[in-house]
């Protein structure tokens, strides 16, 4: 859905981020040092940059100045408040400290992409057209009425497609942290989505984890 440049000198981490982002439908460019990143930026402007601070060649703090309009999320092992403030002062959209959970990174990527209206927010699967910008879903050309929670649940599942989300995570994402309800609420809403959209094969139950939208 969006073109994301990953600048991280640890191949292990770089690959991990790329794998996850690709899985949920983004296109990734992996870059391993500062100067390469600078060159890549000139060739093809990404929708978002995920940037390590300590890089060979050019540091992340230097590289962000070259980024121009491209939103940046710092991913770094530096935990100091000073570094965090510096990163944000330089215009980074977010700052994630290692070790982090991949779902957290994905969530922040989604937030930033939405804020900047980067990437497409439309997707059609099995004749079901989903427009997350306008919050409209049609099946075979006919509009499907979804409740607000059902729509948010669908959005969460699709944005993290191919990745399983736990019921608790879904509660957090859709109902918010304060929601005191049961995780069975999630099950009920998932059943509704499967029925209304014919997604029985798409929204799968993952044993001991939760639900996953497979594509």
């Amino acid at each position, binding site marked *: 859905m969006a073109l994301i440049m990953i600048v991280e*000198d*640890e*191949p*292990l*981490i770089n690959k*991990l*981020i790329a*794998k*996850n982002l690709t*899985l949920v439908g983004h296109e990734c460019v992996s870059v*391993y040092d500062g100067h390469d990143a600078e060159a890549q930026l000139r060739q093809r402007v990404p929708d978002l940059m995920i940037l390590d601070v300590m890089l*060979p060649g050019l540091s992340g703090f230097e590289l962000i100045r070259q980024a121009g309009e491209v939103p940046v999320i710092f991913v770094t*092992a530096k935990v100091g408040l000073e570094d965090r403030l510096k990163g944000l002062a330089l215009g980074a959209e977010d700052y994630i400290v*290692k*070790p*982090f*959970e*991949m*779902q957290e990174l994905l969530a922040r990527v989604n937030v930033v992409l939405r804020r900047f209206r980067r990437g497409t927010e439309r997707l059609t699967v099995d004749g079901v057209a989903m427009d997350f910008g306008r919050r409209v879903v049609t099946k075979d050309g006919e509009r499907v009425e979804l409740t607000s929670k059902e729509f948010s649940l669908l959005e969460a599942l699709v944005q993290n497609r*191919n*990745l*399983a*989300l736990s019921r608790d995570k879904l509660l957090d994402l859709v109902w918010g942290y304060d929601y005191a309800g049961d995780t069975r609420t999630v099950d009920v809403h998932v059943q509704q989505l499967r029925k209304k959209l014919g997604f029985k094969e798409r929204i799968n139950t*993952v044993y001991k*984890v939760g639900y*996953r939208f*497979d*594509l």
Partner: protein
Amino acid sequence: MKMKFFERTYLLMLVLFLLFLNGSIFSLVLYTRHNALEAAEQICLSEQYTVRQAFERDYSAGKFGSDRLLQMTYGVFYQEKEILLSFVDGEGNTYSTVPEGLDHPAEGKMISRMLDGVRYILITERICDGAFLMTYAKDVSYLDRDFNRLTVYFVGASFVASALLATLMYLALRRLYAPLDRLRTVTQSISGGNLNARADESGDDEFSGLAKDFNRMTDRVIAQMEELRATARQKQRMLDDLAHEMRTPLTGIHGYAEYICNANVSEGERIEAAQYIMQESMRLKHVSEILLDEAFIREKTVAVSAVDAGALLEEVRRRHAITAAARGVVLVCKTERVTLSADADLLSVLLSNLVENAVKACHNGGHVEMTAYYENGRAVLAVTDDGIGMAADELAHVTEPFYRVDRSRARREGGTGLGLALCATIATAHGAKLSFSSAPGEGTRVFLHF
């Protein structure tokens, strides 16, 4: 409130000085008075003698006819000269110009008496072969007046001198104590955090000596503090590095586990992810082992014994021969007969690390050579390779924990960045010095000087 040392010294000195001064003045006054009285008595004695001589002469000559007339004549005559006389004959008849109420001294005595605020000196003597008892009396009030004047003068002088003394002594003591106060200001400044403050060392007395000692002490304390701070900083950096080192594998392990758990991917991808997890956990294990080793060596007392360098190098060569061969690297030993006093096990660890690094630095067809020889009578072990070499700025950091010349390559090959740090620790434990010489493209030589 407790008095300051200065105040105590000052008061003690002042009291002693004032006691001494006023004591001296007081005794001087007494002495002067005593002398004045004695002088007056001498005058009185000679006057009395003169009067007696004259009276006895006139008495023998029978002048004036009657004794009474003679007495009256003398009495009146001498009264004008402020000398008072009294005569008593054998029958108790008395003629006297001496005021009534004054005690008369015993025969042949001289006394001094007060009457109505007037001091008299009285001398009584039997004269004219015992015919009369003559008492001579003289007003010596001037003695008391002089004495009072003198006392007033001395008390005044004492006050002035005391005040002057107190002031001068205060100033002098202040001046003497000034270096102590200055030193105190400096110590307060230092204890207040200004470590650059130093005492004034000018002069050549006990205070300047103290100032010098104090400055030396401060320098030493500050130097030690700096040393401790540097050690603490080094430890902190090591910890920071360690935290950073662990964060990357941990992120990877967690991330790939999450991936296996959640992602809708093929079996092949899952296996790949699992392999990453294993690789990274092995790295963490390796790091922890080396850290433990290093801590162990740091605490350990080196078990020194005579070690034959040739045998040691040969053993290390054998151990690495296969891995070296696999990379197409030739590994050889060239040794003189060198005997070291060292801990063979630790030295073997050190050499293994060096050889491992050397082999990794070589391209296919490279050479690694281990040598042992004597230089200026001291044993030297060296590991030389003809591999990729290092630049000077890289050399400076190689023994720092977690430093890697080529991070991504080192990680690929399972390097922790701790090997040479461990080597340096072992070398230090042996009192030996580890040194490097290298240039990019020209290979690296590592020396261990005992």
